[in-house]
């Protein structure tokens, strides 16, 4: 038992007298305050943005959830996975089956969100758990190919299981986000202002993101989280130190799939409709981009990355009009060198290349650089 007067603590941010403070996520006042301000800003968006931009904001939150999931397995544990889209798909269809309404041949049980949302995470997690022992046998390039195989199997199953997915090219409606009779996708008056349906859902997605991000951050700093990093940095060395490889990789895949499933379920609700073709390689690559551009092995990284990947196409679309017509055509059938969609994909690719070469730690790494510049002030190191 000891008492430390305030005068002995104030203004000494680096003096830690217990491990809890030393290891805290928000270990400095600056981090605490900036997080609170950012959160308040994010919470206030439904009262400022229009329907269209709120849709994008929701997409950012959903992409971030899935991105964090992929980061757990690929960023922290270093197990490259191209199969992320499949786990998202499994989550999406679990949700649609349990929470959606039946349409002809397509099954639906119209259950409550409190049932389908957890299961939308748990079912993919179980599949991930089953899949992990196979994935744990290989690494690097082989693992990438192996997960690619999983992707093809998944795509085939999704296309054929008409009772579940509506079949190739047709698709089905997603689950209804209703909690104990309270619809989350419905226009509401909050704090005296009309908030559009997507705004309400945005708040829900944001809440989920915050909870899941904090959980992931905490996982990352547990013994298991450190085991992830150990496996990533050198699996043989990790095993020699007593880190069980199979169990660690399995946990990484399971956790990652859980996040993917939740993300997939929410994604379908944002889109309002879902076809089996959506869960393809391109989507997986989108999420690899979220992780790489945002910053591998961080939690803030995928959130920044999600914002970047979701908002950049819109940004290009908005400013394509100011580019010369011979270069980019905004109208369909225009005579430019590229159309807007091509420009988007092209820039996307260029971005990934640039980040890998220039700043492998992603946008978060850029921030770290800026922060360190001022942290080292007035010196350079």
């Amino acid at each position, binding site marked *: 038992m000891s*008492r430390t007067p305030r005068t002995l603590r104030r203004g000494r941010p680096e003096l830690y*007298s217990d491990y809890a403070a030393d290891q805290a996520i928000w270990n400095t006042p600056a981090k605490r305050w900036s997080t609170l301000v950012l959160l308040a800003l994010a919470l206030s968006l439904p009262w400022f943005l229009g329907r269209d931009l709120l849709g994008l904001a929701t997409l950012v939150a959903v992409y971030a959830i899935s991105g964090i999931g992929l980061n757990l397995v690929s960023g922290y544990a270093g197990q490259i996975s191209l199969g992320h889209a499949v786990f998202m798909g499994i989550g999406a269809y679990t949700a649609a089956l349990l929470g959606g309404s039946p349409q002809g041949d397509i099954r639906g049980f119209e259950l409550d969100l409190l049932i389908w949302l957890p299961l939308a995470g748990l079912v993919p997690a179980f599949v991930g758990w089953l899949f992990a022992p196979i994935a744990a046998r290989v690494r690097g390039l082989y693992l990438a190919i192996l997960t690619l195989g999983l992707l093809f199997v998944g795509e085939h199953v999704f296309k054929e299981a008409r009772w579940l997915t509506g079949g190739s090219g047709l698709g089905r409606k997603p689950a209804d986000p209703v909690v104990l009779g309270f619809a989350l996708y419905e226009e509401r008056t909050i704090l005296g202002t009309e908030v559009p349906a997507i705004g309400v859902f945005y708040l829900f997605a944001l809440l989920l993101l915050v909870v899941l991000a904090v959980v992931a951050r905490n996982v990352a700093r547990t013994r298991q989280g450190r085991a992830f990093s150990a496996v990533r940095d050198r699996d043989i060395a990790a095993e020699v130190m007593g880190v069980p490889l199979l169990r660690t990789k399995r946990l990484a895949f399971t956790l990652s799939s859980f996040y993917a499933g939740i993300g997939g379920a929410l994604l379908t609700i944002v889109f309002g409709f879902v076809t089996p073709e959506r869960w393809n390689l391109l989507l997986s690559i989108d999420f690899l981009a979220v992780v790489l551009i945002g910053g591998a092995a961080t939690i803030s990284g995928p959130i920044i990355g999600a914002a970047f990947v979701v908002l950049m196409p819109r940004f290009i679309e908005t400013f394509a009009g100011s580019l010369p017509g011979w270069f980019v055509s905004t109208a369909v059938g225009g005579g430019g060198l590229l159309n807007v969609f091509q420009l988007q994909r092209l820039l996307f690719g260029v971005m990934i290349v640039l980040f890998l070469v220039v700043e492998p730690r992603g946008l978060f790494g850029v921030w770290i650089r800026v922060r360190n510049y001022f942290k080292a002030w*007035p010196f350079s190191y």
Partner: protein
Amino acid sequence: MSQTMTAASMTEEQGGEVLTLATRIRRFAEQDPYRVCMREKRFGIWQDITWADYWDKVELVAHGLYALGIRPGDRVGIHAENRPEWLYADVGITALRAITMGLYPTNPAPEVAYLLQDSGSRILVAEDQEQVDKALAVVDECPDLEWIVYLEPRGVRDYDHPKLIPFEDLLERGRVHRGSDPDLLARMAQDAEEDDVVTLIYTSGTTGPPKGAMLTNRNVSFGIDILVFSGGLFDPSASQDDVTLSYLPLCHVAERAATVWNNAGAGVTVHFAESIETVQANLKEVQPTLFFAVPRIWEKIAAGIQIKMYSASRIKKLNFGLWMKVAAFIGAQRVANDGNHTLLTRLLYAVGYPFLYRALRDRIGMRKVRAAGSGAAPIAPEILQFFFGIGVPIHEIYGMTENAAVATVNRRGRVKLGTVGEPQPGTELRIDETSGEILTRHPGVFVGYWNKPEQTAETLAADGWLHTGDVGEWVDGTHVRIVDRIKDIIITAGGKNISPSEIENHLKTSPFVKEAMVIGDRQAYLTVLIGIEMDTVADWAQRRQLPYTTYRDLTEKPEVLKLVQGVVANTNERFARVEQMRKFRMIPKELDHEDGELTATQKVKRSSLNDMFGHLITDMYGNRTEHAGGDLVDVHPSRDFVPSHEQED
């Protein structure tokens, strides 16, 4: 005035008890048992130690030592780096009315033997395998030594020696003994007297073997009253809200005052640095409010700032350059104003604070420093001005072991650079008219050297005046300027008296110079031996893409010789013609305590340098150029040590 009143009341015997370090700690433990009073960094965390913990450990150590046979008046040695156990042992020994004898962690085995023999220590508290090995190597030469208590069992656990006992066992014996005789310390406290010798502080001994100065309870209480309660060390006086970092050797009187006395007197929270190498990092974490350092540390901090700036980015360099110019102005203004801010400098400082000063002070761990001190050796005025400029006012203090570190201090707002300040309250100070020696008299003056009545008689006059051995002079009738140690003063062949330390200190303001020894006694002109600062010169050489291998190789590079020549020339400009150095030679190795070139307090032992590097000196005065060095025009490498790549051309 009120401060001296409280100080006076603190010395009075309260409740029939003499106020010892032990009773002070016990009172804190009774008044505020759960308040943090010390922190020690272990396993990456600053572990809290409360007053109750502190006193409990003191009791256990005292009872344990008693159980091992220590009785009032016995000597107990402590051979450890700064750590809480040092204080537990020190205060525990005091509680038993025994005598603490501190050893420097750098003391080599022969010196350990001398100190143990001379003091007749019955028990030695040794920190770890390193110190235990030293003690075991000489244990047969020390017949009085009965036990060696070790703090760190690592490496020592397997030793099979009948005199070894782990610290844990000592505490356990203490626990058992406390159960059987719980009133022991209360009885001891009742019996304690003002004239009890509480500690032997061995003086560093630049000449001859170290002498153990005996300080009594009265001396220590006076030291605490003046240094702690009357702003003698830090002004305004230290309080419970203050934080310090303990890193200088505790067996030195200055650090004893800064750590043990500040803590026991005012309840200052002490943080123990992990080691001398981590002081910079620890400072940044702890951000002390009070900081005492020796000139060498201040020089190192100032040089560290310069070195880090060399490799900073362009914008940061510009920012630094601009605001350091302003700081130089502020420093000069404050120096001209007795250390006070003027309206203009205050304003300039406020503007520069967010741009540079705040961050800079934060990085060097001085952001919260409200009072800083420098002592134990003379410091160059340029260094003080530099720190005044960036907002860390350093007040030079003068004192010595023999007067419980109480003599003079530069008071806040009455600073005169180049002086050691005004006499402390309650201190009589005079300067002998014929010899110029400074004499002090006050209740803190020691009672004599342990077992050395002759040396005591030389130093301590019968009427209570202490001969400090320093030559001084009055400045403006109020402040005292130290000229030099009497025995160091150089008398040239021309009959001129020259104080070498002033010249040496100016040389050492260069970040590239670590050691300088000016020579010229009974010679026609002055010369100097220079030792470079490895870190900074290595960095300098790297930036010039100058390849080198060892310290000696670097030292003897023509480019480095040119660099040193520049420093010497620069210093010469500041001094009169007879005080200018004509030649210099490089010291080919880093000076070291173990090799007998430095004292435990890192002071150069002139006599041993004269012996070891006599060939360099004859090289200069014999007008030869066999060894690396130069004069004011040319430089030349060593003849016997020509780097291979230069032989080719």
